[in-house]
């Protein structure tokens, strides 16, 4: 088990390297360079060529791309992502603060999706071709095809404007106690909407997986052993059926991140998504780079976590 996890970790190291290269190279593609941000069109008129060169040197822009990559990587290892062009704030601090808020939204979205998806999937798999099965399978089709931003605006229109039971945005009320209940009240709508697409996907996979597992020989064995229906479903079938579902939940992580960017924008959630969106609009590259890096690492970590959970629940992997 330990060796298995170690091996998975070792495999990730070169991928992390490539990720940093891509994150760096993406921004390198940009026309002009960082110096442009510090030299407005007006100020350039009053500067000599040497002055401009001095600014470039002070920013380290005179070095070649590989040298700058190494320097950037060196600072990165020390947790230094530089300063925002626009906000003049430390990117690392800014990101950590915002990411906390995003994790609340994404985590609850994914949790709702997993719980609801699995419960409904098991429920309809035991009632194949019933009204419940047909109805929910049909609805799940719409759910899967429903992009987060459309669901987001429809949800906002229906449940914050037409029937104003939820706030139209933000994470806390401007006045009041700003306690946990206040947070939950602001969280419910975006989190539920974020979860819809993934709940639908997870439900369909769970249903499919349960129906496959129920056909297996060991289920007949359990029946022939005189086990109770409940035991057969939850001990014998569900444990096997959930193994592939774990992969699906893991694969949802990148899509949840993307969905969260839209929903944070729509619901004014002060997370990484809104920060990222504004950074993209204003070409604030240090923030874009930091956020890209964080997102890729999250996806990588999610994949790793899936592998580890797989090993825990499936003894065939564990003793590989």
């Amino acid at each position, binding site marked *: 088990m330990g060796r298995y996890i170690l091996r998975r970790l070792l495999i990730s190291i070169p991928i992390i390297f490539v990720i940093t290269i891509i994150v760096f190279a993406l921004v390198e593609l940009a026309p002009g360079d960082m110096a442009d941000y510090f030299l407005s069109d007006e100020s350039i008129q009053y500067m000599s060529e040497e002055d401009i060169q001095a600014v470039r040197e002070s920013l380290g822009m005179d070095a070649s791309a590989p040298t700058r990559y190494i320097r950037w990587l060196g600072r990165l290892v020390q947790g230094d992502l530089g300063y925002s062009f626009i906000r003049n704030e430390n990117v690392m601090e800014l990101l950590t603060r915002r990411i906390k808020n995003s994790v609340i939204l994404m985590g609850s979205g994914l949790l709702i999706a997993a719980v609801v998806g699995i419960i409904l999937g098991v429920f309809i*798999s035991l009632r194949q071709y019933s009204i419940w099965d047909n109805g929910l399978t049909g609805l799940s089709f719409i759910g899967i095809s429903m992009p987060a*931003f459309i669901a987001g605006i429809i949800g906002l229109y229906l449940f914050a404007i037409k029937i104003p039971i939820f706030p139209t945005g933000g994470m806390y009320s401007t006045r009041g106690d700003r306690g946990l209940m206040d947070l939950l009240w602001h969280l419910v709508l975006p989190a539920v909407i974020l979860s819809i697409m993934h709940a639908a996907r997870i439900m369909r996979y769970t249903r499919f997986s349960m129906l496959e597992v129920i*056909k297996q020989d060991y289920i007949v064995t359990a029946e022939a052993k005189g086990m109770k229906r409940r035991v057969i479903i939850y001990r014998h079938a569900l444990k096997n059926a959930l193994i592939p579902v774990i992969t699906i939940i893991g694969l949802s992580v990148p899509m949840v991140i993307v969905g969260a960017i839209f929903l944070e*924008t729509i619901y004014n959630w002060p997370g990484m998504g809104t920060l990222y969106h504004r*950074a993209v*609009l204003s070409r604030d590259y240090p923030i*874009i780079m930091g956020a890209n890096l964080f997102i*890729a690492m999250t996806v990588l970590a999610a994949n790793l976590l899936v592998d580890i959970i797989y090993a825990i629940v499936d003894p065939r992997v564990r003793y590989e």
Partner: protein
Amino acid sequence: MNSMRNIFVKKLAPESGDRKKAEKIETPGQLAMKRFFHHKLAVVATIVFIIILIISFGAPLFTPYDPVGMSLKDMHQAPSSTHIMGTDNLGRSVFARTLYGGRISLLVGITAAAISTFIGVFLGAAAGYFGKKVDMIIMRLTDVMMTFPPLIIMLTVVAITGPGLINVILVIGGLVWPQTTRLVRGQFLTMMGQEFVLAAKAQGLPDWIIIFRHCIPNVMAPLMARISFAVSGAILSEAGLSFLGIGIPSPTPTWGNMMQNARNLDVLQLYPWMWIFPAVFTLVTILCINFIGDGLRDAFDPKQLIS
């Protein structure tokens, strides 16, 4: 416990039906067509999608209004007999903009999907056919690409290159190929050991002839379904980018930048027709294409899993 017992039906009961069916021989293509038309939702979806295509690309035949021409006296009109979907904040017909916007959205979707399919098939075929180092490099590249959600790179790249139709098409097309690559590679790997490939190699045919004449036709079936999901994915990507104001800028209408209006709470609340119609068109189009893709997948391979 009925649903639990299906195993017996499969295992013990049949065996008998197969022989009868074998008498009537149909080509795989005919069988697939038949199965596709059995999939009622897919047929309905195809019809609806064709209607959307016709009214979008034939937009001038269905509306007399100019999608970009402003008319300040007609601002914010609710749907009526003159403007069946109302007008927007610049007095432009929402109906006209929705139809003309469909042109752009569908165009982006189809061309971007074509680009990504081309890249995906090329890399997947190379990886599967040549194997070894080529495979290793391409697959690691795909792995890394898959750690970045496509929309994230799209946002970064569009931020750098600037918005615009061509940029959006190239960025979407250039980023969503990894899934196609994986699919094609998998298909190629199973084909490599088969006799027809070995026979072609034994004849001394050049690799590119074997790939294009002998292998690619066999990949077409699963690829069809993949392409339809690529189209719906690309339409959504464009809509998403434009919704965030980083895709195709106004005044050119697209469903995405029309929905962008809804980010303004006043518009969301007071003038819902400005965003509801493009949202409905996007949803219906995505649903139709996904149903068609589902129908195609079931038609060509009833066993494959939902993705």
